[in-house]
Structures are given as structure tokens and as C-alpha cells.
């Protein structure tokens, strides 16, 4: 009997794009009605009743207003948008923290709860029912976070730009999240082989690398195609948003730049010699970049601070729109002290471009940009939240 080729049975499944670009209009929505925090950073016991429209949370730096957004973000992605570890989100003297949110999903109540545990026994419940895998929570609450250091997406290295694309893809479909973590895992394993080889090119090393290369090529090609499709979709939206926010007719272009040409498997084979010498994988989805330019000049190196910030905002806004369009449900918008960095014209343009969905905004100064109509206001002092009336 002849052996079947490996590709006939190794999980080589190409996903069809299940959600078309002209999916149903984003009518559905999720609203956070009540958020409660126990031992989450400096919030020993906080409860906050949010408004469906715009909620403004003010407080001096260090009082705990960003922690609120971080907690909401945790329920969305099971990670901190500030890149913090689980440990650092748990109160200093505590073993566990709990984040709980009462949501309204298309008019139905849903209670989601996450328990963060120092020993890594994180647990998640939906409507008081524990989920077998915490990751099954993903997709229940979608948020888009605007943070002051979003500037780095444009200004810093390509890592942040890939991260942005992958975050949007992860919000859109679980399979992208799976592919992304598979890529990370394969890269780690391949890197370990390269290091252990110590420059050796024995048959053993070659045969092991062959396997990791095949896997990386398969998942990598699929993931990069998804990133490219996303860039193609997001790019005209960013261009339009940029003009609106900047108030001029600048031309923004976006181009996804692969770190290889042809097939990834061939590229990995060609790069193997250099990879073994340098002990790192030199081509692949982890070396790609999203190039952006304003009026033909690279935004990263030639943009002014104002232009870079405007572009970063446009990217976040466009992300929100694309997620809404792809999944048919509007993500909640979290604005972490974003307005303090904007001039008046850009601030009110941002207010104008924000989607009509639940928005939670933090501000250190307490001031709200022109045109914004808060439904509720809160003050955070030392991890305590108070609603402000009138």
C-alpha cells in the first residue's frame, strides 16, 4: 500500500471567509449596564452603573480610572490592553480578583464574570455557568480601546502594527486568534531548534526544521492572507477618517509588506542557512510590516506628531467599523484619556466620527470636548467611584 502524503491528513484546512464584506448592517449591540470589581488593582470593591450612551469617568492620574477600562478590556480579551500580567491586575494583598459585568445583548440580559487567580486558575462564568475553557468567553463582549500610547502604532516598530491587525482579526473570528497563537508557538519551537542546533546542519536538525517550517508556512500563509484582506478593507476607511479628523485632504495609503516573496515554505528553506547562523527565524508573519504614508511620505519617519496621532485615531476608529461590519455587532468604545492630546479641532472631529454606540471615556482634567453629550459622569478617587449628578 502506498502511504498517503502528509498533507492529506495533517490539519491542513483552508478556511473560507465566512462573513462577507457586505454582511448585514451592524444593528445589534452590546451594552455594559453594570460593572463590578473586587480586588482588581486598587478597586477593592467598586460598582458602576453605566449609561447606554457616553459615560465620562474623571479622576486624577493614579486614582484608578484607567483600571476600569482595563477591567472591561479583560472581559473582552482575557488580557490587559496595557500589556500587564494577570498578577499585576490583582490587588497587592489579594490572591484573586473578580471582574463582573451585566450586559444587555440585543435586549437580553447576560452576566459575565471572570476570576483572576495568582496561581493561574483563572475562571470564567456566563450567567453563573462556568465555561469549560476561559477562551470560550471571547467574542461575548467586543471593545475597541483608544489609548494615549496608540501613537506608538504609527511611530514605533512594526510589532505594534501587526498587533493592531491581529487584535482586529481576533475580534472578528476565533480561528484568527487560534492561528495567531499557533504561529507564536511554532516560532518558539523553531527558535528552540535553531538555538539547540548551535549552527549544526545535521540531518536530524534539517528533518526537525522541515516539520516546523511546513507548519509555519501553512498557518502563516493563511494568517497573512487574512491580514492583507483586512488592510484592503480598512485602508479606504482610514483614508476617509484621516481627512475628516485632520480637516484637510491629505492622502493616506496603507500597504501590507510581507517579509518574503513567493511561497513561505520556499522562503523558509532559502533562509534556513542564515536562520541557523543567526539562530532566529528571519522570514514569516512575525517579520512583516504595515506601511503607512501620508501624502506619499512614510508616516513613521516623516509624519509630524499631530499627523501620527491623527492616523492612530483613524486606525482605531476604522477598526471599530470593520469589526462591527464583519460580525454584525458594534463594539463598545473605550477612550482612555485620548482628548487631552488633541487640539480642539481634532477633538471635536473625533467626537463627530465616533460611532453611536456605548462609549466610556476617561479624563484627567474632567473636561469634555465640544459636541460630546455625556449621559452620565463619574469621579474616581482612590479606587472609589461616585456618580456625579447635574
Amino acid at each position: 500500500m502506498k502511504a498517503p502524503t502528509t498533507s492529506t491528513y495533517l490539519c491542513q484546512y483552508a478556511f473560507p471567509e465566512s462573513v462577507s464584506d457586505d454582511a448585514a448592517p451592524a444593528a445589534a449591540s452590546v451594552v455594559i449596564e453594570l460593572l463590578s470589581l473586587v480586588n482588581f488593582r486598587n478597586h477593592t470593591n467598586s460598582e458602576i452603573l453605566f449609561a447606554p450612551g457616553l459615560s465620562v469617568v474623571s479622576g486624577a492620574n493614579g486614582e484608578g480610572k484607567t483600571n476600569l477600562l482595563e477591567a472591561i478590556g479583560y472581559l473582552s480579551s482575557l488580557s490587559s490592553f496595557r500589556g500587564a500580567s494577570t498578577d499585576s491586575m490583582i490587588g497587592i494583598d489579594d490572591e484573586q480578583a473578580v471582574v463582573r459585568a451585566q450586559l444587555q445583548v440585543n435586549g437580553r440580559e447576560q452576566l459575565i464574570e471572570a476570576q483572576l487567580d495568582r496561581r493561574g486558575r483563572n475562571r470564567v462564568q456566563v450567567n453563573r455557568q462556568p465555561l469549560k475553557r476561559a477562551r470560550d468567553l471571547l467574542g461575548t463582549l467586543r471593545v475597541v480601546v483608544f489609548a494615549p500610547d496608540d501613537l506608538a502604532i504609527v511611530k514605533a516598530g512594526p510589532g505594534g502594527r501587526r498587533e493592531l491587525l491581529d487584535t482586529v482579526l481576533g475580534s472578528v473570528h476565533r480561528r484568527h486568534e487560534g492561528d495567531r497563537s499557533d504561529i507564536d508557538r511554532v516560532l518558539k519551537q523553531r527558535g528552540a531548534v535553531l538555538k539547540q542546533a548551535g549552527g549544526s546542519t545535521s540531518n536530524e536538525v534539517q528533518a526537525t526544521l522541515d516539520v516546523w517550517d511546513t507548519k509555519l508556512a501553512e498557518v502563516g500563509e493563511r494568517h497573512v492572507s487574512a491580514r492583507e484582506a483586512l488592510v484592503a478593507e480598512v485602508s479606504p476607511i482610514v483614508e476617509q477618517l484621516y481627512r475628516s479628523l485632520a480637516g484637510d485632504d491629505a492622502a493616506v495609503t496603507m500597504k501590507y509588506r510581507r517579509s518574503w516573496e513567493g511561497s513561505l515554505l520556499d522562503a523558509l528553506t532559502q533562509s534556513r542557512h542564515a536562520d541557523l547562523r543567526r539562530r532566529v527565524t528571519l522570514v514569516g508573519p512575525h517579520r512583516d510590516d504595515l506601511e503607512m504614508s501620508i501624502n506619499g511620505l512614510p508616516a513613521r519617519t516623516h509624519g509630524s506628531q499631530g499627523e501620527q496621532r491623527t492616523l492612530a485615531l483613524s486606525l482605531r476608529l476604522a477598526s471599530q467599523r470593520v469589526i462591527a461590519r464583519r460580525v454584525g455587532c458594534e463594539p463598545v468604545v473605550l477612550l482612555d484619556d485620548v482628548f487631552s492630546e488633541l487640539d480642539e479641532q481634532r477633538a471635536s472631529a473625533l467626537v463627530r466620527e465616533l460611532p453611536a454606540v456605548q462609549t466610556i471615556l476617561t479624563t484627567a482634567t474632567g473636561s469634555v470636548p465640544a459636541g460630546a453629550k455625556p449621559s452620565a459622569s463619574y469621579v474616581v478617587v482612590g479606587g472609589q467611584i461616585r456618580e456625579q449628578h447635574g
Partner: protein
Amino acid sequence: MYEGPVQDLIDELGRMPGIGPKSAQRIAFHLLKIPTPDAMRLSEAITRAKERVQFCQRCFNFSEHELCLICSSASRQDGTLCVVEESRDVVAVEKTQEFRGRYHVLQGCLNPIEGIGPEQLRVSELLGRIDGEQITEVILSTNPNIEGEATAMYLARLLGPLGVMVTRLASGLPVGGDLEYADELTLGRALEHRRAVE
């Protein structure tokens, strides 16, 4: 820190997989509280197991003898090998009562991060068995995760040229469950590997 022997016990228990310092302490205190014969039974069970249990010289499953019960059984089918990562996977496949061939336990999977390459696994022993036992089919039953898939691919490439049929466990939906409760990745893969209904 506790008195010598108490702390020793906690430390030893804490070395067990999946047991953190708190659990180690809880188990240690439990052992100190229960009647002596009960504790001795555990201690003897460990000693006996360590003395008597070895690896089967052929399939590397746990065994009380040089050859395990499966390898030495005359009623098992020759010619088909089911390759698994660990002994516990043998137990899992045996429970199905669907497999009448024999096993090969790799004692792990390719995992360079943990320093496990082909030399650390029972790979050369597997290759030796193909000719030695006139194997015609090898069923690769490593785990459906990245490392398990890589191990299967690695073995498939070694086994292919030997003229033996190489198959891989199908991945699909849990039986007896509801479609709506299957996670997207499992369901997605099952959809991808759908087959014609005869």
C-alpha cells in the same frame, strides 16, 4: 517553614506535576492527620510500583514484565501499530475497544522548548519495529495540538519511505454532544474534513 520532616513532605509533594505549594501543604497535613496504616498503604504503593513497574521493552508502555500484557497477548492483531505520546493515551484508546492492534508509546512529543527532540523519544525503536514485526499500518495518534501535529508529520516523513501505510486520527466533534456547544475551532475543522454520506 515547618519542622524538618513536615517541610520535607511538603517539598516532595510540591514537586509533583500540577501541585502548587498550597495544595502540597494541604495534602501533607492530610497525610499527617490520617491513621498510620492508611498513610503506610500509600507509601507502600509507591515503593511497590517503583520496584515492579518498568517500561515494556517493545512498546515502552508501563509494564510489570519485560513485555506488557498487550505486547505479549496472542489475541491482538499483528501488523498494525497505534503510536501515542504517553501511556495514558494507550488507556484512552483501549477504552474505545475499537483497536485490536498493538501500541508504541513515544514517551512524549517533539517539543524543542522543553529540550525534547527525536532522540529523546522512542523514534528509532519505532522504526526498528516496522521491519521486525512486519507492520503494514501505523496510526499516528499524537495529540491534536501544535506539538502533536508536528510529531505526526515528522514520523510520517520517516515512515513513508518504508512502504508502510500511515494514517492519522480524524479530528471531529464529540459524540453525544450538541453541535451548538462545540467550540468554533473543532466545529470548523470537522466541517473542513466533512465526508460524503454513503
